[in-house]
């Protein structure tokens, strides 16, 4: 491609500036976790790990901050349940749309994608309203108190599953689409039962996609705020706890410490999902 050195130089500089822009807030959020100061701001007062391990106020470290830890525990629990459900539903959806033909398939496929483009707030309020309507109906007409239909962890799980299933379906379906159906036929031809074909050929082939889908779902669930905020009950997950702290209490570097932990955690998980998607080159 013909291009003057001048143009090339400017172009490259732009890309560099862009990446600096991309990284700088993350670096800022991370760096001040190690600043020995009560506020996440300059000047730099020296390196400390107190915001991670500090045992007492005013520098109460992350591992002694019960509310943050409880939030983290809730997020972990929600994330695991949500990812398991979303991967399970995503797998059956992928088989449904890749392998089966049925009436109105095109319309239903669009419907399957739609949750991805509905704003998270609206998914949240829709689930909240619908669950309340069902709970009220059960209460009034049947005399049943269904507590899990009231704001709380079960509703957060439902709210997150509602849009994560679309993501997991797309990830798994993309890999299933590349699957050569002749492999299943070959296994059948060699005498395997249908269940055995699924367990020994199809699922092992899908495994990297299932794994990535699980990780993506877990990370998105862990970070989700918009849907979760509406559905939260007394057990707040980490994002909601952090948000409350940010707007109500005013921030201390412990939030930076949480940010560091989150970035490291999601970085490792992302790395794991990238590695498993790549075919192994060692014998």
């Amino acid at each position, binding site marked *: 491609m013909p291009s003057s050195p001048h143009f090339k130089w400017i172009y490259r500089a732009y890309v560099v500036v862009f990446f600096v822009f991309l990284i700088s807030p993350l670096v800022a959020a991370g760096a001040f976790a190690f600043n020995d100061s009560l506020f996440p701001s300059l000047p730099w007062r020296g390196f400390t790990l107190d915001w991670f391990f500090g045992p007492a106020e005013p520098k109460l470290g992350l591992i002694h901050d019960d509310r943050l830890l409880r939030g983290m525990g809730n997020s972990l629990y929600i994330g695991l349940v949500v990812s398991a459900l979303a991967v399970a539903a995503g797998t059956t959806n992928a088989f449904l749309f890749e392998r089966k033909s049925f009436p109105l398939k095109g319309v239903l496929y669009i419907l399957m994608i739609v949750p991805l483009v509905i704003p998270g707030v609206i998914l949240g309020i829709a689930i909240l309203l619908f669950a309340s309507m069902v709970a009220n109906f059960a209460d009034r007409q049947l005399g049943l108190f269904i507590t899990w239909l009231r704001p709380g962890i079960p509703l957060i799980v439902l709210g997150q599953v509602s849009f994560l299933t679309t993501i997991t379906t797309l990830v798994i379906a993309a890999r299933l689409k590349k699957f*050569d159906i*002749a*492999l299943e*036929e*070959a*296994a*059948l*031809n*060699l*005498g*395997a*039962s*249908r269940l*055995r074909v699924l367990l*020994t*050929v199809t699922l*092992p*082939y899908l495994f990297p996609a299932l794994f990535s889908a699980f990780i993506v779902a877990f990370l998105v669930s862990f970070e989700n705020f918009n849907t979760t905020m509406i559905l939260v009950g007394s057990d707040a997950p980490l994002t909601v706890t952090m948000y409350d702290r940010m707007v109500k209490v005013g921030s201390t570097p412990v939030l930076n410490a949480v940010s560091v932990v989150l970035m490291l955690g999601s970085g490792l998980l992302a790395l794991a999902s990238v590695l498993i998607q790549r075919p192994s080159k060692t*014998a």
Partner: protein
Amino acid sequence: MYDLSCSGLTKRFGPFTAVSDVSLDIPSGSFFSILGPSGCGKTTLMRMIAGFESPSEGDIKIKGESVVATPPNKRNVKMVFQHLALFPMMSVGENIAYGLRCRGEKRGAIGAKVAGILDRVGLPGTEDKRIDQLSGGQKQRIAIARCMVLEPDVLLLDEPLGALDLKLREHMKIELKLLQNQFETTFLYITHDQSEALVMSDQVAVMNAGRFEQIGSPKELYDAPVSGFVAGFVGDSNCLTGTIATVDGADARVRLDDGGELIGRVADRSGPGDAVEVFLRPEALSLGAGGATTLPGTVDSLLFNGANSRVLVKLATGQMLEVADPAQSGGGAVGDTVTVSFQPERARVFARRGA
């Protein structure tokens, strides 16, 4: 008794008939090919035999037993897939052991059988290799070994050489034939490549538009095709169109559409006034006088290809004829006036297709 026989086999997909009233009997231990252009129904036929499609009508018998109601994983017919379908997540050994494991054989016995079959296909000790470490020819042999280790009644091969490059394909043709001899198993081979079918097979069925046109040995198909389709599809031919003027015994005088006349042998029931096609093998033609029919023309170009060299002659009436020139004499220079001649029995006259 036949290893595999089909009778009146028909498969319809909605209004489309993919396979129409096909019958065949394959004797034990033979190499049988089905040759046809893509879309002729040969793959559907093979998938019915393997059990992946169920026939609309007709019966399939393996060793005399009907298998139409048997699911694909219970039929003792193994298949080498077009792109081989080796399991990429398993090693060579696991691929070969797969069928044995499904059968529930003992671990020790499986190991011995896998080693034994790898020995027979000439790849001993490759159990732990991954599939993507194998060359094209090695993959081919593993795919065959994976089936043969199960000692099938019939081995189906669905154009397994299609993905190989030309040189390797030539080599694998011979190797497949040798493997078949060695295993003494019935091979049913599907291909659109007539040279594969002719080189390897004991018997070839030529398939067109869902039907068998002819079943016979490669030599019969080449020398005595029963239809214009077979004559055109098997081997190289010049094809001239015309109308029968008169018939004298087996021979007919054909008036060519582009002008000129020739004498050829009627190979079907065509009579005077019928539109026909005349098939002339390049090696049936010679340059110079001496045949019952002589056609004047000029040398258009020389196509050098070693022992398969040809001379392209443009007839005075405008048609092009390929004439075999095994001696690579060249028949003179481009633009020379020549005469193409042949004997009537080498010109096969068939009713025109689609007429």
